[in-house]
């Protein structure tokens, strides 16, 4: 055909949309620019600046930052017993929370994915999701009431009182949906016919669990553990509410920042959870769990 239909606006002056249409790179740049500027420059820049600040110090009187390079903050962090104790306590708490959540999440995730009827399945997903969006603070506060002297758990002699145990339980409670959801999503993708095939071939339930369910469950559990681990490392409010006088790394960060007016030391402490998470992410990368995030 010799005749070509020209859009009316294209004849005199190209419309801006037309220019964009012919230049996908420009379109991509305009779309990606602002979010990338925000996250790549502002957020990553802040993280880099935080690390640099951790290599500075404060003067002894006013808490003003002195821009002199020093490793003193890290030396204090690794040599003073109090910080080592707090670091170990925080890591152990994160590990305990992750294990408890995995143990609690497995049966309900399996039930939701493979046993419940579609209607019940939908209801259960909502039942698990709803408390996820209930206020974090309110949930921690709720456990303060549960563990209180003279409270419901205490009245049956089951309250551990405010302390590390209460903190572990409260944090397990707070992050439980983050473990249930990836496990449920993983198990839902597992075809039921595989379970049937395993049973038809004579495998007892235990063998089916170990050989069919577990290989699907493990990457999902690892995906969930990234959240339970990271959220525990970054938390300092729950331990204030139910942990008695115990401290976690987050408390040290916050107290150095606000009460101590020592931003460089707070920055140095904050690099521990980042380092731990980076190590953790690298370690689990090989399991393929990151793809299911």
């Amino acid at each position, binding site marked *: 055909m010799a005749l070509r239909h020209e859009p009316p606006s294209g004849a005199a002056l190209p419309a801006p949309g037309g220019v964009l249409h012919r230049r996908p790179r420009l379109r991509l740049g305009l779309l990606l620019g602002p979010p990338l500027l925000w996250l790549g420059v502002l*957020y990553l820049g802040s993280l880099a600046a935080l690390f640099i600040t951790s290599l500075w110090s404060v003067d002894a009187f006013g808490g003003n930052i002195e821009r002199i390079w020093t490793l003193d903050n890290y030396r204090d962090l690794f040599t003073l017993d109090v910080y080592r104790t707090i670091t170990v306590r925080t890591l152990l708490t994160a590990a305990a929370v992750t294990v408890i959540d995995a143990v609690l999440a497995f049966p309900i995730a399996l039930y939701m994915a493979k046993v419940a009827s579609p209607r019940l399945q939908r209801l259960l997903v909502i039942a698990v999701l709803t408390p996820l969006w209930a206020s974090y603070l309110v949930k921690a506060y709720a456990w303060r009431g549960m563990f209180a002297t003279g409270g419901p758990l205490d009245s049956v002699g089951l309250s551990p009182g405010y302390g590390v145990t209460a903190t572990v339980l409260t944090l397990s409670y707070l992050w439980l949906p983050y473990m249930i959801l990836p496990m449920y999503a993983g198990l839902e993708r597992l075809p039921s016919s595989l379970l049937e095939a395993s049973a038809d071939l004579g495998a007892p339930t235990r063998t089916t669990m170990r050989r069919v369910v577990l290989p699907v469950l493990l990457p999902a559990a690892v995906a969930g553990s990234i959240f339970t681990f990271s959220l525990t490392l970054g938390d300092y409010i729950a331990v204030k509410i139910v942990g008695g006088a115990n401290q976690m790394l987050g408390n040290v960060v916050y107290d150095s920042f606000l009460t101590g007016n020592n931003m460089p030391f707070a920055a140095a402490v904050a690099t521990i959870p980042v380092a731990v998470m980076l190590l953790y992410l690298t370690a689990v990368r090989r399991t393929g769990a990151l793809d299911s995030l």
Partner: protein
Amino acid sequence: MSLSRTTRAVLLAFSALVLLFIYAPLALVVLNSFNTSRTFAWPPPDLTTQWWSAALENPGARNAIVVSLEVALMATAVALLLGTMAALALQRFRFFGRDTVSLLIVLPIALPGVVTGIALANAFLTMFGIQLGLFSLVVSHATFCMVTVFNNAIARLRRLGGNLEEASMDLGAGTFRTFWSVTLPMMRSALLAGALLSFALSFDEIIVTTFTAGSGVQTLPIWIYQNLFRPNQAPVVNVVAAALIVLSVIPIWLSQKLAGTDESVAAAR
């Protein structure tokens, strides 16, 4: 269903226990908001609604609610814009570093809250010389709210594919016209769901907030936290907590209506 009858019964019993574990503490807060005892004696000696009326007239709580609503609205507006742009860029284009960008969007919620909080506070104070306040608070909230909008938007875009947009372009509509008349209407409910979840996330956030809000701005979680340990405020704090539990049903219910179960599962992660 090839799991044995016993296995299924055990799973059911265990699931019921986990649900009890999830809901018992929340039920206690709601029940205690009617407890006549100021110290929440267990079991409650009697029930009353006096704390609810006291809480309604509490000026501190009312101001804090207004501040929280403002912050959540502004942060959500920014997150909605940037999250949608990022989702369109990542779903409709293939480019070098695409995986890195998607990791970057998740990073503010993947890294521990204290890290994001102290990093942004440090950036505002020492890099930009901006005092902490409403502005720094909204910026920090928008940073981690972006991912909820992004997750919802990209899940929808993935499902839609690009056929209708190509058809629109072939029929002579430009980039903006196509976005406005084709892409946006199809994404609307997913964006609304993402915005709702982002709003809820911002409204509830406390850890980053304690770092970037400064001393002059009091959001509702900050108000609760500051009054949590004051015995004479205990009944009012408890009523606010109970009200928040009841209200938290709204965003999840709405987002279920809007986006369906699968996408709200994706959004929660």
